[in-house]
């Protein structure tokens, strides 16, 4: 089975978000980049599927050269090879069309994405100037866009996927519960926990990742449909009002009369 895993290169959630250049540029100082957490689940499941029934796992990222350490990490975790589409991921449509191009030429049996490009909630970020190089990601749309562009089914958020004889049995989370689905390969899935345990690269993985193939290809178009004009920060949070435990009941009065939320 040939599996494609699409990964994002995103600031760690613990990063403090601020902007520079008149709120048009992410302040990259102190920002730590990681593989998108949902993408990490997708990758881990892809490797498990490969270990169980053979095949290959290719990771793909649409990004500029600065995403390569993140791609190498995915190789260290166990992907066989990687493709980087050398372009700034300007908007979701652009990213999805570029991924679809690669998927069409290489015909994968399964395309795993993350449920959404997470902590950014729909905004992958390379800290570029807004305008030409804007950051216009949609949250949780990659799988649907990709599926539609490829004419394949798309399923998300996926909590479990098992494959036998070209048929996938899937557990999808729905509001308040779960749904059990069946679909024939190929299809696109947006993954989330507990699809697999996150994998941590070991020393051997890290060593072998250095020599695994990482192919850099150019995008086939530069068409986008959205652009970010500016960023804004929310107003600063007010200070917390503490209520002594002995008078806890007063909280309820405050919530009704002061905050007016109950």
């Amino acid at each position, binding site marked *: 089975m040939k599996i494609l895993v699409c990964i994002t290169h995103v600031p760690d959630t613990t990063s403090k978000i601020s902007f520079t250049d008149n709120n048009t540029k992410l302040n990259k100082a102190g920002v730590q980049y990681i593989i998108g957490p949902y993408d990490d689940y997708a990758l881990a499941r892809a490797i498990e599927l490969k270990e169980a029934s053979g095949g290959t796992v290719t990771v793909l990222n649409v990004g500029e050269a600065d995403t390569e350490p993140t791609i190498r990490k995915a190789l260290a975790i166990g992907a066989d090879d990687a493709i980087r589409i050398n372009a700034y991921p300007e908007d979701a449509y652009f990213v999805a069309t570029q991924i679809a191009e690669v998927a069409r030429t290489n015909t994968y049996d399964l395309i795993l994405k993350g449920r959404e490009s997470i902590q950014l*909630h729909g905004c992958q970020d390379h800290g570029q100037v807004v305008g030409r190089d804007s950051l216009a990601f949609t*949250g949780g749309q990659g*799988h649907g866009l990709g599926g539609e562009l490829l004419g394949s089914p798309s399923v998300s958020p996926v909590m479990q996927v098992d494959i036998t004889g070209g048929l996938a049995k899937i557990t999808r989370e729905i*509001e308040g*519960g779960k749904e059990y689905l069946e679909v024939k390969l190929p299809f696109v899935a947006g993954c989330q926990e507990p699809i697999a345990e996150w994998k941590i690269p070991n020393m051997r993985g890290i060593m072998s990742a250095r020599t695994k193939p990482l192919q850099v290809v150019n995008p086939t178009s530069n068409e986008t449909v959205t652009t970010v004009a500016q960023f804004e920060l929310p107003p600063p949070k007010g200070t917390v009002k503490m209520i002594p435990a002995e008078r806890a009941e007063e909280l309820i009065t405050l919530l009704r009369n002061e905050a007016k939320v109950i």
Partner: protein
Amino acid sequence: MSVLAFIELDENNIKKSSLESAGYAAEVAKRLGTTATAVALGAVAGGELEGLGKLGIQKVLHATDGRLKEENIQAYASVLAQAVEKEGAEVVVFAKSSLGDAVASRLAAKLKAGLAANVVDLPDLINGFRVKRSIYTGKAFAITEIKSGKKVLTIKKNAFSPSQSGNTATVEPFTPTLNDADFSVAIKEKVKATGDILLPEADVVVSGGRGLKGPEHWSIIEDLAKALGAATACSKPVSDLGWRPHHEHVGQTGLKISPNLYIAVGISGAIQHLAGVNSSKVIVAINKDPESPFFKAADYGIVGDAFDVVPRLTQAVKAL
């Protein structure tokens, strides 16, 4: 030209988030000098579709084909594309939800429309078509311009309160063409708690963490939630340990919610947890540790033992 609103249902009732997004669609239509049409798929409780008129919706396209009973992403997207065509719609509005995300994105690809997710405010129509979106899990906003002719939006829960004007919408039967290919994903079984308030839809949420020590103590959370008409949620370790179902887990790897009120009990307030709840209007933290980071993110705090404080709060709510 018109504006389309997709209506999501829960047990044949229109979801609150869809009322918000339908009201949003109506307001956008008004500003664009056009009308708003809602699209509902499957059986809906009597009078609810007509009632969308109160929010400013003029017309409802209602497709009742039995195959649309289940939430089938591909079929829904293709039905909506047909509705867009029929109405000559320029803007399509969804509630931000797992179904909304899935259908909106397929529709956007079909229409080659720019898609703005997690929208928190009405569009600015002076500078093209610009919307404000919540990004970085509520840590910032991006003012996004949609450049394409057709536009698809998903509206964040609780970001928009529709005005009530008081007309009745006309409900029109709608018979889209359905292809077998639209049903390539077979829905075998659905397991869903009935009667509960859905967590992403709830205005008030009571949430418990590892501080509650075990699933057998959840009744204090459930009692307070019941008294408040709230949904229940939990931290990640709690769902990892199997104390609570996964769909209740909020945070970076779980649901992102934005209720009016979020009450966190025995949750430390790790940044990955806050990522799921920091868009709540009001946050209450109850923790026995005065150093708990949750107090920095909260509007109200109580340093105390959950097992003492929470039942007393429940009593106080009942006494209101």
